[in-house]
């Protein structure tokens, strides 16, 4: 962990903060895309340290949060089927569907298991040839290659009992969609470092060119984040709009070619609905024709599911950076991590959960005296 310490060093952080204060001359709004970055910002209180003229709004970069309710309900329906072993990342298990969550299915007798990698799900399929093993694949370009690898290996080994319920989404189309929105406030992006590890930063060139916004590839530690903010402020103040890589210790211009090729083979790009935002063109990944036999939705033939979102949940506005979690009237009262109205409160990367966990304003009277 030695390698990380310099990126958590309070002294370096303070130097960067004073550099940001010296540079900024007027108000700027920037968005960090990734839920992991939101989490780190709130956990470390970086938003409290920045000058008032720099506003960080939190982006849609929590894949669990943007998974549409009907897909969650479909997952619940498949997980409840006899003979199925349903696997996913731990975060997915607590996301509320219309009536229950995956933990609820599990306690009602469904075989639902947490895995740390899609390859673990594949291993379960190998050791349980008499069961149908489904992996609920969630995530951005970061986790999609591992899912692709699992499907690819299943195919190579001729496994007939492994299926994928795909909820993978792509970041650049969402960045464009947010900038197209009439309510957009975002003037610069802090791009998600780990996504860029896979896709490279050149992928953002088109977004920058079309909309003229600075895009700074940023890491996750406090010093990384402040460094990203500083780079974005400098670009904005100087009227520049460039793709700038401030996470060079991890991110290469071209990304991970092998991972990209694997994804291109296994997946095909599709229009996708994002929870709280709507359909974004060419923003999701489905299985390509060659691998359709592994498609869980197709195999289990789950019918169209009608859903209605809780009307009180404002997570769509939060995901677009229009509303701060604490500005939602239900925050911390009718909506808490134990009784979430929407996914931004339940996923550990969701903005509402991060605020509730680390930064919930205590009622003013508690602090008095």
């Amino acid at each position: 962990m030695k390698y990380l310490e310099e990126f958590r060093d309070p002294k370096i952080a303070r130097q960067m903060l004073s550099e940001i204060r010296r540079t900024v001359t007027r108000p700027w709004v920037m968005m960090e895309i990734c839920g992991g970055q939101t989490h780190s910002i709130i956990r470390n209180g970086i938003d409290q340290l920045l000058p008032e003229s720099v506003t960080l709004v939190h982006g849609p970069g929590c894949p669990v949060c943007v998974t549409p309710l009907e897909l969650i309900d479909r997952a619940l329906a498949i997980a409840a089927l006899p003979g199925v072993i349903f696997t996913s990342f731990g975060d997915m298990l607590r996301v509320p569907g219309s009536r229950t969550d995956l933990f609820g299915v599990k306690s009602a007798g469904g075989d639902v298991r947490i895995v740390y990698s899609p390859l673990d799900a594949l291993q379960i399929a190998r050791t349980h040839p008499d069961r149908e093993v489904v992996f609920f694949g969630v995530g951005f370009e970061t986790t999609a290659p591992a899912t692709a690898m699992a499907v690819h290996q299943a195919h190579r080994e001729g496994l007939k009992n492994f299926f994928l319920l795909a909820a993978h989404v792509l970041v650049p189309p969402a960045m464009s969609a947010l900038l197209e929105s009439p309510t957009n406030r975002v003037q610069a992006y802090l791009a998600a470092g780990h996504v860029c590890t896979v896709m490279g930063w050149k992928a953002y060139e088109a977004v920058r060119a079309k909309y003229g916004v600075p895009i700074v590839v940023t890491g996750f530690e406090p010093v990384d984040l402040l460094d990203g903010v500083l780079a974005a402020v400098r670009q904005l103040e100087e009227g520049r709009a460039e793709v700038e890589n401030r996470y060079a210790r991890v991110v290469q211009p071209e990304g991970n070619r092998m991972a990209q090729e694997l994804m291109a083979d296994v997946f095909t790009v599709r229009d996708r609905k994002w929870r709280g935002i709507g359909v974004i063109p060419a923003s999701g990944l489905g299985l390509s024709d060659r691998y359709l036999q592994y498609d869980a939705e197709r195999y289990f033939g789950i019918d169209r599911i009608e859903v209605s979102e809780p009307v009180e949940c404002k997570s769509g506005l939060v995901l677009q950076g229009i509303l701060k979690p604490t500005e939602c009237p239900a925050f911390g009262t009718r909506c808490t991590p134990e009784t979430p109205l929407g996914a931004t409160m339940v996923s550990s990367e969701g903005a509402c959960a991060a605020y509730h966990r680390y930064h919930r304003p205590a009622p003013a009277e508690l602090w008095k005296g």
Partner: protein
Amino acid sequence: MPILRHRTIQLAHGSGGKLTHELITRLFADRFSNPALDRLDDQAVIDCGGIRLAFSTDSYVVDPIFFPGGNIGELAVNGTINDICMCGARPVALSAAFILEEGLAVADLERIVDSMQRAAARAGVDIVTGDTKVVNRGKGDKLFINTAGIGIVDHPYDISARRLEADDRIVISGRIANHGMAVLSKREGLAFESPIESDTAALNRLTSALVSGLGASLHAMRDPTRGGVAAVLNEFAAASGVGIVLEESALPIAPAVAGACELLGLDPLYVANEGVLIAVVAAEKAELAVTVLRGHELGRRAALIGRVRAKPPGLVAMRTLLGTERIVDMPVGEQLPRIC
């Protein structure tokens, strides 16, 4: 509103977090209510003809039954001793009840029972009674162990979660999160560069040293097992109606454990410990408490990690390395099932 918000028992009801609290207070404590129970400490203290007796019980379902640094049997002995001695009681006797699954290897059971005897001997406590049941294959998971124990409170002080006062200091006896990460690494087949071992240990020598060294200045003690340091401090803050603020830079944690938590996205404040205690002491005795703990092998890495403040009541916060403050909430949901 129904008594519990779920109609069936969820894994999270056993997590030591909010749902556990709801289950205990609304279902069990509500029905069993009596003065000794209603204190909801890790042990009940009852008066038996002029002797103050501490009484506690705990069941162990850890999976796997053997893990780096210990096994389910040692855990069952040490865990109940720790529950007894956190009120400053001197543990005197334990019971051990075994629920065995048909097919369990006798050699495994032998190893476990041997290590239970060694753990009890180390702590100076006898296992004086027990019970054995066998269930059909598939109806249990290898073995579950219940231990209960009694101890004698031979000091006049009230050591309790309700005794925290503003300006008290929070002391911890050792490095955190070892047990949870050891069990998890074994269960998930994760290999770390330096092996992480459970810290399972009986803490009765530490607690008796603190009682005799600090007397009435020792306000509360508890061992942060399920739910970790965060759960214990939230229980303290709620029970005493005070706030607590931790110093991130002061938390003792082994680099390998910090790295493993980082890798798995777990917050070490929520990870279980089985050989660490948290003591809340009057400010002027804080240094003494650390010195007393460091005089013992198990307390060599004792540290001062925070303080109690009057406001906001019930809220635990942490001053981060950057000097900002964040909330350390009661754990919600199930981070790692069957950790003890």
